[in-house]
């Protein structure tokens, strides 16, 4: 369980987050929505232990977050830059397995297994910059999933993709979430996406000093479908509710 209690964050004098209190139960897929520049990435980086100081308390399974916790994975907003271009796709994906102390051939096998799962079997020996944007994004997701993290943080992972790729990856994420049962915090600025993916949607106010303005459970059937789910009346109602919260100043 991830708990944030009155969490604040600032860069120098610039207050970014203010008084964020939030409990994410195990296995929940939480979507965080907010206008550009409100502090969504900052929130994720704080939870990931990448910003050494913050106000308030953050605990993961009861342990305060000081530094990067174990069993955590992050998909960064700038995913293409986050891959190491001098390593092949397989080497990139196998890199997180080093901390588990697996022998080389098991690391390879594990990387290939996860690459197959995201549909990238044939690209294992290529380099990230030889792939399309959507494929690079899947490499970044594979690298995050390979260690079977119990907490997965994703920062606008589908932001710059075409509609088709995006829908495919959304469904891939839902499937992974169903089978692996990780807790996922998913940042997006797309209101539709947040309702389609989330078990719950949290809306942040525009910065500076962003705080939570809406915390909404998404009561939609667990098995979701791009066409039918988006056509449900409940979906439309939830979407307008989130939309109103995002636009409110």
């Amino acid at each position, binding site marked *: 369980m991830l708990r944030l209690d009155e969490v604040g964050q600032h860069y120098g004098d610039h207050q970014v987050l203010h008084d964020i209190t939030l409990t994410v139960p195990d296995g929940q897929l939480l979507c965080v929505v907010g206008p550009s520049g409100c502090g969504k990435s900052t929130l994720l980086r704080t939870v990931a232990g*990448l910003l050494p100081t913050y106000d308030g308390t953050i605990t993961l399974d009861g342990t305060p977050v000081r530094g*990067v916790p174990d069993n955590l994975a992050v998909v*960064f907003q700038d995913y293409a*830059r986050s891959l*190491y271009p001098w390593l092949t796709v397989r080497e990139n994906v196998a890199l997180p397995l080093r901390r588990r102390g697996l022998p080389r051939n098991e690391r390879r096998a594990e990387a290939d297994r996860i690459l197959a799962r995201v549909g990238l079997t044939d690209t294992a020996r290529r380099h990230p910059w030889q792939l399309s944007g959507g494929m690079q994004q899947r490499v970044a997701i594979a690298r995050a999933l390979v260690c079977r993290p119990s907490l997965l943080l994703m920062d606008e992972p589908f932001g710059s993709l075409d509609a088709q790729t995006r829908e495919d990856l959304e469904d891939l994420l839902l499937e992974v979430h169903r089978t692996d049962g990780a807790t996922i915090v998913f940042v997006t600025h797309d209101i539709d996406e947040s309702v389609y993916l989330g078990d719950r949607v949290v809306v942040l106010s525009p910065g500076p000093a962003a705080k939570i303005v809406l915390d909404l459970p998404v009561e939609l059937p667990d098995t979701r479908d791009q066409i039918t789910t988006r056509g449900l009346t409940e979906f439309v109602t939830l979407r307008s509710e989130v939309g109103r919260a995002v636009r409110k100043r």
Partner: protein
Amino acid sequence: MAVRHALLRWTVLVLAVVVWQLVAGAHGSVYFPPPVEIAGHALDLWFSGPARHVFLTEAAVGDILPSLGRMAAGFGIAAVAGIALGVAIGRSRRVYALCDPVLQFARAVPPPALVPVFVVILDFGTPMQIASIVFSAIWPVLINTAEGARDTDPLRIEVAAVLRLTPVERLRFLILPSALPRIFAGLRLSLSLSLILMVFSELLPGTANGIGFTLTDAQSRSDLLTVWSALVLLGALGYLLNTGLLAVEKRLIGKGRTTTV
């Protein structure tokens, strides 16, 4: 396109040699012997030995190999120490700020000016020669490595933190590969400095062998043909060594790098 470019480069060189040959042949000056004569002399002097010595003559074994050995030792030590120190300095903002003035100063000193210092400390001989090469060649690789290591993409450092890489893994998978283009830029400069200092340290009195020694020795005997042969040899060595280094660089970083830096 690449083939045409290479052809063009060699054409200019060949033309220059031909012109030199014609002019020198026409004038018959002892100071500027024609290239054919120089090449023939160099062949006689160094490359007409027995087959079991890969055609190296005694003069070649006695002069070229010791020179190359000292240069390899000096360049090798400078490269390893320069990369190690460069990474250490570049990875810490504070250490970098402290060391920067010293480095700028050390880089500004013309390398041959250091040689007298080592002559006093170490006396004439191989240790002095190697020390002269090391202390001249270390700066470009050290400074470039430090700058390369300092400019590691902060996002990729965050990735390493999230992946919980150990310091050694960080070095191996992130900092060294990302600094590699800068490291090689430094190594190329260091290599040509090594060659310069190799010759320069052999020009001093008290040296008993080496290409630089051949040069001063031939000059004292007014043997200009040997002087010219030694110069051509040095040019060829410099070209070959640089080509070798470029090939290593291409192998190491050809793959991981196109538009994404």
